[in-house]
């Protein structure tokens, strides 16, 4: 048996010199490549079926759903208070904002929106903005890491950890806080929180300077980001993009400014806008928003008043523990509150807040019981991911990584 035949039999292939001229040409066919669901750049939960011509993507099918945990179905069986832990797990990088969104949705249905104490509103804005910072820090840091800038990733994660530690001091949990309640928050800010947060913000401002110096004019970073995944303003509007992605395309919309809620009218901040709508602009918008978060937080720390941390309304508040143990009325109220839940009058309302990725909204249909008849979450990640197929079209496979990183798809929020 000739050597080459043996090789072909054993290895199933020929050496290049054994191939005829036509066989040596690269195959002209399109090829289908499966990216994800377990791919480091797919954040663990999305599958993209790519049809590639060489390295160029000619067609793609984005398939979410690998992290679907039935948020909406489970919510229909939980009391309004029990939904808070579920909302933590929607966008698990900025859970506080989801908590606030859900609380505001229920409060709107109960007509409590204007009765919320000022201090509660300030605490909610403070924890929301801290969450927004953790969201942006993770997004920018992880994207930089995926492009090889591991140092920037570590710097940002260090900064994120300071915020997580503070949020842990506030709420008792590092990641899934469940800190907000209908009508208020669980507990007041701890002693010394003001100085801690002020110091942390100063440190983070320092980190921002360092990381911006590292990334903004870094040739590799710019080459991978600038001009990649660009979207026009019209497309961004028609595809429903919100938040930093839409703002990078020049869509001037921020829920905090255009539908002011909570105490956002009382603080000053700018809404950064991009011009080109590519990955580099998305990065710049996020970095600028981080600075605006620091600005908002500093104002909030100056302006926060003293006062109660829960609205005084027996429909939504638990009685004081002292009374629960000592009077029968309070004990019954406590029991009904826990077992039946907060009774929300029949109606339906859509309430939305500015989340880390843009407008996150809850559409609740209430039927007068303590559990929602329907709870729908308008998740920005899902809407943004639907544009991914269009964004990666005609790009190289390597460009999927920055595009996907800057879309900042959060599996929990996208798949619900």
């Amino acid at each position, binding site marked *: 048996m000739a050597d080459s035949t043996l090789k072909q039999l054993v290895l199933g292939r020929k050496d290049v010199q054994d191939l005829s001229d036509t066989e040596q040409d690269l195959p002209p066919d399109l090829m289908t490549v499966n990216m994800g669901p377990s791919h480091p750049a797919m954040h663990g939960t999305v599958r993209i079926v790519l049809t590639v011509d060489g390295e160029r993507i000619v067609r793609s099918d984005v398939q979410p759903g690998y992290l679907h945990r*039935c948020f909406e*179905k489970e919510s229909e069986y939980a009391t309004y208070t029990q939904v808070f832990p579920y909302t933590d797990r929607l966008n698990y990088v900025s859970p506080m904002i989801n908590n606030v969104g859900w609380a505001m949705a229920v409060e709107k249905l109960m007509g409590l929106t204007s009765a919320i104490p000022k201090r509660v509103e300030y605490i909610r804005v403070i924890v929301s903005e801290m969450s927004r910072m953790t969201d942006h820090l993770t997004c920018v840091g992880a994207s930089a890491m995926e492009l090889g800038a591991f140092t920037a990733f570590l710097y940002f994660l260090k900064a994120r950890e300071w915020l997580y530690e503070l949020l842990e001091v506030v709420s008792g949990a590092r990641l899934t806080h469940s800190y907000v309640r209908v009508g208020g928050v669980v507990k007041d800010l701890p002693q010394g929180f003001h100085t801690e947060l002020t110091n942390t913000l100063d440190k983070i401002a320092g980190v921002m300077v360092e990381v911006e110096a590292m990334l903004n004019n870094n040739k590799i970073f710019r080459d991978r980001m600038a001009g990649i995944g660009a979207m026009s303003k019209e497309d961004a509007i028609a595809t429903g993009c919100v938040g930093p992605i839409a703002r990078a395309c020049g869509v001037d919309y921020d829920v905090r400014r255009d539908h002011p809620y909570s105490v956002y009218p009382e603080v000053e901040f700018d809404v950064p806008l991009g011009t080109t709508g590519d990955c580099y602009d998305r990065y710049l918008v996020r970095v600028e928003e981080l600075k605006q978060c620091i600005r908002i937080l500093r104002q909030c720390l100056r302006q926060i008043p003293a006062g109660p941390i829960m609205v005084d309304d027996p429909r939504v508040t638990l009685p004081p523990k002292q009374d629960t143990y000592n009077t029968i009325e309070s004990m019954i109220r406590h029991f009904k509150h826990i077992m039946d839940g907060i009774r929300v009058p*029949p109606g339906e309302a859509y309430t939305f807040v500015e989340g880390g990725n843009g407008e996150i909204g809850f559409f609740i249909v209430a039927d007068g019981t303590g559990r929602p008849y329907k709870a729908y979450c308008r998740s920005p990640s899902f809407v943004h991911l639907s544009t991914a197929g269009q964004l990666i079209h005609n790009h190289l496979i390597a460009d999927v990584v920055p595009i996907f990183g800057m879309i900042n798809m959060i599996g929990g929020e996208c798949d619900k």
Partner: protein
Amino acid sequence: MAKQVLDALTAKFPHAVDRTEMTYGDEVAWIKRDHLVEVAKWLRDELGFVFPVFVTAIDRLDWKPIGLPPSEHWNEDKPRFEVAYQLRSKTNQRLRLKIAAPEQDPRVPSLAELWPAFNWQERETFDMYGIRFDGHPDLRRIYLYEEFVGYPLRKDYPKEKRQPLVRRDDLALNPLKKEVR
């Protein structure tokens, strides 16, 4: 400001608007489903409702609101499903279009051609509620796998029901792969 959109809508399409209401500051217009595309196109082009927000459906099968008279409860004469389209205008007005769909014929015209954002959200609504969107370019399940039987967010789908994925080979191949072969 608030009622103007609803009034303009009713004046322009008296035959298409069933009724209008305000709930918690949201404007809601009930549209006959045959006229949905026409109304939506007018809203987008003339009134500046260019921003799509969300689509979802409501299953009224179990609707017995506490504190409301029994006439408000759902019964078999009423349409079981409602599809809600939420839109936002350039001046940040919010409008919800609602379309009733009966149980036997849960069909609604698709608005995915007008707003690409609704492409995936209509797929999600189809996946969860089994609403068929006429004219949708690619109405496949999106969260669940195609072998899944039933629609999990319908009220008659038990929460505890489990469906292990059973491989079926009689289904059409992935059209994306077919061209490659």
